[in-house]
């Protein structure tokens, strides 16, 4: 560093966001007197075009070589100002931002305190800025392929978009079939499109698309690397059925010894399946799978004389010796589309879901009204002994949503509408039924939703405002205890069937995905996006995107929109074929490194290795950093005994002056 530092300090008003609590002029005046500061200015919006021009002009005219911008969080505008100073001809890493908005003006009320703190923070930034070094980002090739985790409607849509654009897609699905939750739905609100009719063509497309490699009944085991270059390891679980040979005829399932004894996951446990099964008739791929937990041969080692499925399979596809297979490949981007779990209604014991068979969830109702469901689309319930058609039906909304007692403060966004839709479907099937919906508020916010809700109400479906406190049994009836809050009347409503409008929750296995990809959760426990408004499908990790309900409850149109957004974002590195990799990596001073290898053991990315160099005629070992693997965390540096390994932009000699600046002003 030969040039003398010439620092420009730019203090932003951010309208009144900053200037209301921080005297920006006083801060600039103070900064002007700091060592090496050539100019200090304020401006109403530093990020605006004129604001940026102000900085650029000063760089050109005053020959500034370091810039400090005191404004919002660097997480917000660091890229903006980096770009600006680069355009003015200086290295983009000669920028230091001072966060005087999110961590100062917005959190303090006293203007004097806010101003004093802002001054200190600016002083620390100037102290660091003087010692910043020029860095160059490197470009590396990006693998023109994407990994999509989860093949519900979000994953399917994203896969199709990326594949249609000409890139390779690896679509990994945990269960034996693609389709996800949408495949379980009967009709979709508000248009009453048959869910299967609009979904199955897409399911078939993604299985037959030449650019999509569909891995059903598989799980992602490991992801390493970075944007453009992720190394992925997938476990294809043993199906015990030869994928190539199985014709999907179904003879095996018909003969299985535990036929109709295993609760079907697809039918929410209301229908039964065999141990060898196809989750549902339209499943893609149409290949059978043996459930290792219920197959007699796999659990007990014996199934009659010979497993029946093996006997009847003409394709000789059954193979009990099959083992899990590990597949490895490289991708440039990843989309997480892992979906949701419906709220477990037994967590609201007052509604008796676990005790009364005639209290069912909305998801179970979907299967019950579906023509392909366990009852062939007939809505029937068991009334103690006999099977009856329910005439008195109550829906309860907000079960497990907007409910602090179960830890879910959020609105699940779909329950009001699916309840309305189910009420409508039952009205079609049982014209003389008495249907009522207990609600807190009805949220019909989407396109055509309010109109649909209005239509349903006119179909003689009563909406009663009240949140039921209890459901209990009286004779053959269920009693819903509730207060009608519009008339302040306590009610005891006797019904045959209660449908709980259960909300959407983060998946129980979400922790697994978090650990795999280092994702964070928002307060509602769904995955956290990079910015709630401007980067709703990005994550904090570059190259990893979110689609669908894993990011928060969504209806189908929003899920598809988000999937398309994620696909288009994921395609940016794939289409460019190149990605910039971070310049803020660790570097070793080989003259002082003693080759102890502590850093080698500490690095979680195996980015450091010991190499032999010649030091004054002696062969010595020193650490060397592979810049493509290093992510710049700096953990190595904190462990280095001789301070030889240092992350660029966060070197000891850059941080210590910051500490001194913050400490010294007593």
């Amino acid at each position: 560093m030969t040039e003398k530092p010439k620092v420009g300090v730019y203090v932003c008003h951010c309208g009144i966001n900053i200037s209301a609590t921080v005297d920006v002029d006083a801060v600039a005046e103070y900064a002007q007197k700091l060592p090496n500061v050539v100019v200090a200015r304020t401006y109403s919006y530093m990020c605006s075009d004129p604001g940026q021009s102000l900085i650029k002009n000063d760089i050109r005219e005053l020959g500034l070589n370091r810039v400090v911008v005191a404004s919002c969080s660097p997480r917000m505008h660091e890229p903006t100002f980096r770009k600006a100073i680069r355009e003015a001809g200086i290295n983009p890493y000669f920028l230091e931002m001072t966060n005087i908005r999110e961590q100062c003006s917005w959190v303090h009320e006293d203007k004097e305190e806010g101003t004093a703190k802002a001054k200190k923070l600016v002083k620390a930034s100037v102290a660091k800025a003087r010692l910043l070094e020029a860095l160059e980002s490197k470009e590396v090739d990006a693998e023109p392929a994407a990994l999509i985790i989860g093949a519900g409607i979000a994953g399917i849509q994203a896969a199709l978009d990326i594949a249609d654009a000409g890139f390779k897609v690896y679509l990994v699905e945990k269960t034996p079939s693609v389709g996800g939750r949408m495949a379980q739905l009967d009709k979709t609100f508000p248009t009453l499109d048959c869910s299967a009719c609009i979904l199955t063509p897409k399911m078939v497309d993604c299985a037959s698309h030449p650019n999509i490699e569909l891995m059903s009944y598989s799980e992602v085991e490991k992801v390493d690397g970075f944007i453009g270059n992720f190394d992925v390891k997938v476990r294809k679980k043993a199906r015990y059925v030869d994928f190539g040979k199985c014709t999907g005829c179904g003879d095996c399932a018909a003969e299985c010894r535990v036929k109709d004894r295993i609760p079907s996951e697809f039918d929410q446990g209301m229908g039964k399946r065999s141990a060898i099964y196809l989750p549902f008739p339209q499943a893609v791929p149409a290949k059978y799978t043996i459930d290792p937990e219920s197959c007699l041969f796999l659990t007990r080692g014996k199934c009659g004389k010979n497993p029946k499925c093996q006997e009847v399979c003409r394709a000789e596809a059954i193979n009990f010796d099959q083992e899990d297979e590990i597949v490895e490949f490289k991708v440039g981007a990843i989309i997480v589309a892992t979906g949701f779990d419906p709220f477990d209604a037994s967590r609201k014991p007052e509604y008796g879901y676990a005790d009364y068979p005639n209290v069912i969830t909305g998801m179970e109702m979907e299967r019950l009204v579906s023509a392909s469901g366990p009852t062939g689309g007939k809505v029937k319930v068991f009334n103690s002994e006999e099977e009856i058609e329910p005439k008195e039906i109550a829906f309860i909304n907000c079960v497990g949503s907007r409910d602090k007692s179960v830890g879910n403060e959020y609105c699940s966004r779909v329950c009001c509408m699916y309840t309305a839709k189910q009420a409508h479907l039952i009205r079609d099937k049982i014209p003389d039924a008495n249907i009522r919906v207990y609600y807190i508020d009805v949220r019909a916010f989407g396109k055509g939703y309010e109109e649909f809700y209005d239509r349903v109400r006119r179909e003689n479906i009563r909406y009663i405002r009240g949140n039921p406190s209890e459901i209990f049994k009286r004779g053959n009836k269920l009693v819903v205890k509730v207060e009608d809050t519009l008339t302040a009347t306590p009610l005891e409503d006797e019904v045959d069937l209660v449908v709980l409008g259960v909300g959407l929750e983060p998946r129980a296995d979400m922790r697994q995905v978090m650990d795999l990809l280092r994702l964070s959760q928002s307060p509602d426990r769904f995955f956290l996006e990079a910015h709630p408004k401007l980067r709703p499908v990005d994550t904090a990790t570059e190259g990893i995107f979110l689609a669908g309900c894993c990011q928060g409850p969504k209806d189908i149109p929003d899920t598809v929109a988000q999937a398309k957004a994620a696909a288009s974002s994921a395609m940016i590195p794939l289409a460019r074929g190149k990605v910039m990799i971070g310049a803020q990596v660790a570097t070793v001073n080989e003259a002082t490194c003693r080759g102890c290898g502590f850093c080698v053991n500490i690095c979680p990315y195996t980015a450091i290795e010991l190499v032999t160099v010649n030091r004054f005629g002696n062969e010595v070992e020193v650490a060397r950093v592979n810049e493509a693997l290093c992510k710049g965390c700096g953990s190595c540096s904190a462990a280095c005994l001789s301070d030889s390994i240092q992350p660029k932009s966060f070197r000891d000699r850059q941080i210590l002056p910051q500490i001194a600046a913050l400490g010294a002003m007593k």
Partner: protein
Amino acid sequence: MSADYEPNIVAFLCNWCSYAGADLAGTSRVHYPANVQVIRVMCSGRVNPLYVMNALQQGADGVLVSGCHPGDCHYMEGNFRARRRLGMLKSLMEFVGVDPRRFHMSWVSASEGHKWKEVVEKTVEDAREAGPFEGFRRQQIDW
């Protein structure tokens, strides 16, 4: 300890969780004391234990290091390293006679703006109770 004593606290926050959490506190307009000044580092694992001592030497009355929740580190295990190193430092500080209330470690995620406020309040309160640090001050140099 004077009544108008305001502790000076230096905090090291990891970029991915705690710094983002502190940003969220701002976006949510959560109010907290102005005594804490933040230095952003990429990972809590970057915080050399000597930084903590250095801060005390340079005039801080308390130091806070905050990272992602254990197991949630953006760099996989950096916060585990921090937890070990700084945990050891804390016992060492006690051993050499520095009030342990001057040093705090916390785990604040990107969505825990309110927790950040609580952490700041607790850190400030503890440092206030501990009083102005009169220990091994370095001679003050104005760089």
